[in-house]
């Protein structure tokens, strides 16, 4: 039985439907991210779990108990907010202690627990400091310690890193994951940053317009995006509009390319072929195989370890990520042939953007 379940959760604000009957289930100790652009409903879903919003319909169930109508202060859910959530009138220690005071724990127990948690987040030395004397990253650590102090049933994180510097963000997300694994706490994490979601989660649910587009492990989401939206949202993708030529072959503007994923598709069907830039191979055009897309290098984008080479191939603009030395051999203006292994392309039906709506369960 799942530990935390969102069952057919549905939320309308007036005419606007924020969430369309989503179903998500977390195993005990699982770290699941709700990922999507702003306005996709991820924060609303989290706030419903926390109890700050009532769903229009649907249920929130923890360990088989329906919590949908339980007020937030009786849910035992630890929450970390985006920013400014520490009580400004209390120092770090008192902030962490707050939930324990509410629970009327003895002062000895409180002191011990506060000490433990501040040590866990590495802030023992800052115990007496007030929030305005702490950096953004430290504030979020205190907020995390405060949420964990009450030994919550579920840890909820609402874009806890979005207000921090890039470096602190990476550091802290690894730390959140480390603590989560160490404590084995079931965690629901909301973010719009795909890199963040992929790097820390056991599973990721990608949301768009209040619907779940895909739910799966980070590798599944990245390597096998289930919808054009997911493909577009996660990382960079080359999108090739094509027609199925015959089983396992697609026709991109007259060039026939083998793609394993296109097996069993009817001949003549319009499809979208998705290829990661790191999969795409570039060679000088002379002597290339006929199953390659030919174009001209138009730009080099330096990305550190790799260089992204942009290729203008007629109707398509392609991106290929190459090691810097390889890219240097293909300067701007070079005629190149782009190819990819047959199993490196992902084929999706070419459909209207809303088509994914059809996959959601029919509403009442």
């Amino acid at each position, binding site marked *: 039985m799942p530990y935390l379940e969102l069952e057919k959760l549905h939320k309308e604000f007036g005419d606007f439907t924020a969430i369309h009957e989503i179903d998500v289930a977390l195993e005990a100790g699982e770290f699941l991210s709700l990922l999507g652009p702003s306005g996709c409903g991820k924060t609303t879903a989290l706030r419903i779990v*926390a*109890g*700050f919003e009532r769903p229009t319909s649907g249920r929130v169930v923890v360990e088989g108990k329906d919590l949908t109508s339980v*007020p*937030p*202060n*009786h*849910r*035992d*859910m*630890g*929450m970390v*907010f*985006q*920013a*400014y*959530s*520490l*009580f*400004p*009138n209390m120092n770090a220690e008192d902030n962490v202690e*707050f*939930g324990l005071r*509410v*629970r009327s724990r003895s002062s000895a127990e409180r002191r011990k627990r506060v000490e433990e948690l501040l040590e866990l987040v590495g802030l023992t030395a800052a115990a007496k400091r*007030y*929030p*305005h*004397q702490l950096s953004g990253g430290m504030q979020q650590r205190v*907020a995390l310690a*405060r*949420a964990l102090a*009450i030994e919550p049933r579920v840890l*909820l994180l609402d874009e806890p890193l979005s207000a921090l510097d890039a470096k602190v963000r990476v550091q802290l997300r690894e730390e959140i994951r480390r603590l989560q694994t160490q404590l084995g706490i079931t965690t629901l994490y909301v973010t719009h940053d795909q890199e963040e979601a992929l790097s820390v989660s056991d599973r990721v649910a990608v949301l768009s317009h209040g619907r779940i587009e895909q739910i799966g492990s980070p590798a599944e989401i990245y390597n096998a995006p289930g919808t054009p939206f997911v493909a577009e949202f996660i990382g960079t993708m080359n999108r090739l509009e094509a027609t199925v030529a015959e089983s396992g072959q697609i026709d991109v503007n007259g060039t026939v390319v083998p793609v394993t994923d296109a097996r069993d598709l009817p001949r003549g069907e319009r499809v979208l072929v998705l290829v990661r830039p790191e999969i795409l191979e570039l060679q000088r055009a002379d002597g290339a195989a006929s199953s390659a897309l030919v174009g001209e290098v138009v730009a080099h984008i330096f990305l550190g370890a790799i260089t992204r080479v942009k290729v203008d191939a007629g109707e398509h603009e392609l991106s290929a990520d190459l090691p810097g030395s390889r890219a240097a051999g293909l300067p701007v203006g070079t005629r190149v042939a782009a190819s990819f292994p047959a199993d490196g392309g992902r084929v999706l039906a070419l459909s209207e953007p809303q088509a994914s709506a059809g996959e959601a369960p029919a509403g009442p």
Partner: protein
Amino acid sequence: MTRSGWFWIAVGVIYFFVPLAATAEFSLKDGDSYSFAAYREIFDDPAFRDTFFLSLKLAVATIVVALLLFIPTVYWVHLRLPQFRPLVQFLCALPFVVPPIVLIVGLLYVYNYQWVPAKYLGSPYYLVPGYVVLGFPFMFFALDNAFRAIDVHTLTEASQSLGAGWIRTLWRVILPNVLTGALAGAFLTFALVMGEFTMASLALFNTFPTYINYIGQTKANPAAALTIISFGITWLALLGILLVGRRPGRAAVQVGGAR
């Protein structure tokens, strides 16, 4: 500061201090020499003590009622009804434009209704509701500023997620962070009640301001002394606002400042 800046400050200081200094000088005059005789006369007058302590009690009662009324109201408006904030703001600014004389006539009219207990009508606490209304703008804007300086939503939700109910959230989390605003509102209300004449006079109660008026019409030097005393009270209230605004060590307690 430019030279013209200093000039205008000097003009302001002269405008402000010359009448004050003249009054102070006059209050100390005793025939051809100076003494505290006028002050002694005031402090020895039982009517001074009676009216002063009555006004003090009324001020405290007004502050208590206004805080009990406004802290939850402003909190709720910020948390749940932000769309009504302009309306509340407008209503709270009304006493600025409605003269107290209109207010007290209205209030006396209201008190004519049968449901007002007769016992209450003879008590000077009768004036408190009127003072609370007169103090609306001071209390509201002081608190409104303080609430705008904190993230009411996040703090409330953080407190709730940690298990706290409404009362604890208001008392332990919200109130300490708007305390400066509450105290500023309290001091302003205090100064208001200690100086409000029209309502008390029309309702036929002898409060400190009506006493000042009476002395002003009957005795010259003590009247000046009383003016200085009443001025001192107002100044102490203002000093109080300044002091609570800069208590060290505590975060986010500034009057209306951004964090």
